[in-house]
């Protein structure tokens, strides 16, 4: 499968042409805040660079408001309605490599475990992933300390690299190579290849954290004093987990609109004090220390035991969004330095 380049002007045209038989999911600038994942209509400002803030790919796969069904009741007539899910092939372009890795984590929870989630599956199936190689990692990034980017790159369908006025596209699977048939795609020059190789090497050279290469799942412990240190400072918001590309917890709620009841799935987080509180009042994690511990243990121990992969991809969103600067990199460094 030959690599290709396409000018930025042609890229939009190409995406628009794909829209005839694809849903094209791309990051769209909203003027402020992280770019959002949208099923584009071709008119939006698309941001395929990864240097700005960008919502995690779960915003598309697990929307913040995910309707499970609607129930309409009139006199003598009740209708139960499933939401309409698109059956078109889908292309997601511009996600970061760490977010692609996070999709592997989501897959293990929503597709490959004991349960197969039909809503997630409908979006995930026939989804082509074209990930952008980061050319200017953010201050919070630590992907290279929690994984092997060369391995992560094999889980996507193509890698794209921003070369300024054009975009380098390196297909990984036949599925993505087939999408590159437009005459707008040209052979890359030697210079193009050199540039994209440099971007890849720069990314791999991202400075390693002190915990890199250590088995965090073996170091992390139930009674580590660090949970108390985190709990002192933690304010109990959901910024870390709502932004996290691999946090999957949800709540199910019913809203009534007119004569329709809508049952939907929405975000929930172990950091909230009422998370999984039972109807009868029992709260399994009444103390903040239990909640700060849960998030780290879940990602670095339980998911390792269940799925043989850690639930962190080093995207740095929790690091940037924590209002009290609880930096997961420091937490992991402390956990591993004590034990190993």
């Amino acid at each position, binding site marked *: 499968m030959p690599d290709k380049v396409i000018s930025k002007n042609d890229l939009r045209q190409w995406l628009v042409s794909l829209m005839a038989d694809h849903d094209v999911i791309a990051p769209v600038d*909203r*003027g*402020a*805040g*992280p770019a*959002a994942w949208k099923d584009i209509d071709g008119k939006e400002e698309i941001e395929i660079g990864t240097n700005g803030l960008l919502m995690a790919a779960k915003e598309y796969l697990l929307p*913040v*408001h995910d309707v499970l069904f609607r129930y309409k009741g009139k006199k003598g007539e009740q209708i139960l309605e499933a939401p309409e899910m698109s059956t078109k092939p889908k292309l997601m372009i511009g996600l970061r490599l760490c977010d692609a890795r996070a999709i592997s984590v989501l897959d293990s929870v929503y597709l490959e475990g004991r349960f197969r989630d039909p809503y997630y599956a409908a979006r995930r199936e026939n989804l082509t992933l074209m990930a952008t190689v980061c050319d*200017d*990692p*953010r*201050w919070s990034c630590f992907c290279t300390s929690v994984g092997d980017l060369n391995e992560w790159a094999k889980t996507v369908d193509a890698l794209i690299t921003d070369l300024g006025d054009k975009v380098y596209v390196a297909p990984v699977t036949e599925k993505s190579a087939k999408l590159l048939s437009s005459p707008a795609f040209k052979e890359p020059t030697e210079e193009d290849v050199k540039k994209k190789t440099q971007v890849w090497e720069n990314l791999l050279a991202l400075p390693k954290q002190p915990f890199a290469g250590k088995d965090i799942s073996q170091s992390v412990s139930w009674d580590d004093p660090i949970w108390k*240190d985190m709990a*002192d*400072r933690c*304010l*109990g*918001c*959901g*910024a870390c987990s*709502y*932004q996290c590309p691999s946090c999957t917890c949800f*709540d199910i*709620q019913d*809203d009534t609109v007119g004569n329709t009841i809508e049952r*939907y799935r*929405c*975000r929930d*987080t172990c950091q*909230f004090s*009422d998370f999984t509180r039972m109807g009868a009042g029992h709260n399994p994690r009444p103390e903040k220390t239990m909640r700060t511990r849960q998030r780290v243990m879940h990602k670095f121990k339980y998911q390792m035991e269940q799925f043989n992969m850690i639930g962190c991809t080093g995207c740095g*969103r929790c*690091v*940037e*969004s924590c*209002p*009290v*600067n*609880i*930096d997961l*990199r*420091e937490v992991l460094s402390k956990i591993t330095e004590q034990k190993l």
Partner: protein
Amino acid sequence: MANEIEQKIREEAKRLLESGEVTLVIGWKAGSMPFKTTPAFVRSADEVDRLVWNPACTNNLAVYLPQVAKRAKVAVVAKPCDSRSIVTLIQEKQVPRENVKIIGVTCSGIVDDASLKAAKIRLQDVHGLDWDGESILIGTPAGKAKLPITDAVREGCKTCTVHAPVMSDVAFGDAPEVNAAPVEPMEGSFEEKRAFWAKQFERCIRCYACRQVCPACYCNKCFADRPDTKWTSKKADASEAWMFHMGRAMHLAGRCIGCGECERACPMELPIMKLNREVALHVQEMYDYTPGMDPEADPVLGHWEPEDVDPNGHH
């Protein structure tokens, strides 16, 4: 090297802990990056050297007091903003005055990720941050950049008129002279404002960072967390977010002291302070009241007089 105010904070913290006057000092310590600090919970005198003071001390530490100062004697390092929040907490009987030792510090403005970015600083390049009292010195691969503090502070700090703590047991630093810009009311017609906010609220993910970081948001049960009454549901859409943010702004009327922490904490960059400033302007205009200045004052909306202005023009 510790600056002079830092040194004084540490000495006072040491004295308070050693004398047993308090069992906990809440201040700031160095964060994970040069442009970050993080709240410090100091419980023994040999840990006081962790305490720092610089323009990156963003967190309004009053937020912790309702949890920790109800039954224990604590000390807290307080910027002017933080001191005004403490005044509000005392007024509203959330924190007993006798349980809190306030170590006040004067302030000429605070920097955060957003304000540094606005000053054209690439955060990934910053490997050091120093402060000489007037300017911040930012170490980058290209050398040291010197930025007058007034150029790098948060938007909210540019209109701030309170540069010394309004209440303290001990205070360090001289109040700087800062020319405050006037607070401008929201521009535009009702429809324009409505359209503006509808667009903003689309981004809200309902993580409640704004609420959790706010010293005035201490309710045991927030109206937004009531599945029984459903004032607002958990549905993350613009209309429900609208209800939450407008509800919060109303609950903060006459209580928000304008520290801007909610806006800083928002990972979606919602301009929350635009709302709070607008509400504060109305409260100021209608009741001639500035929150968080006098612990003896009645909370403005918790108090009624027959001659109070009715916003609808009738009594």
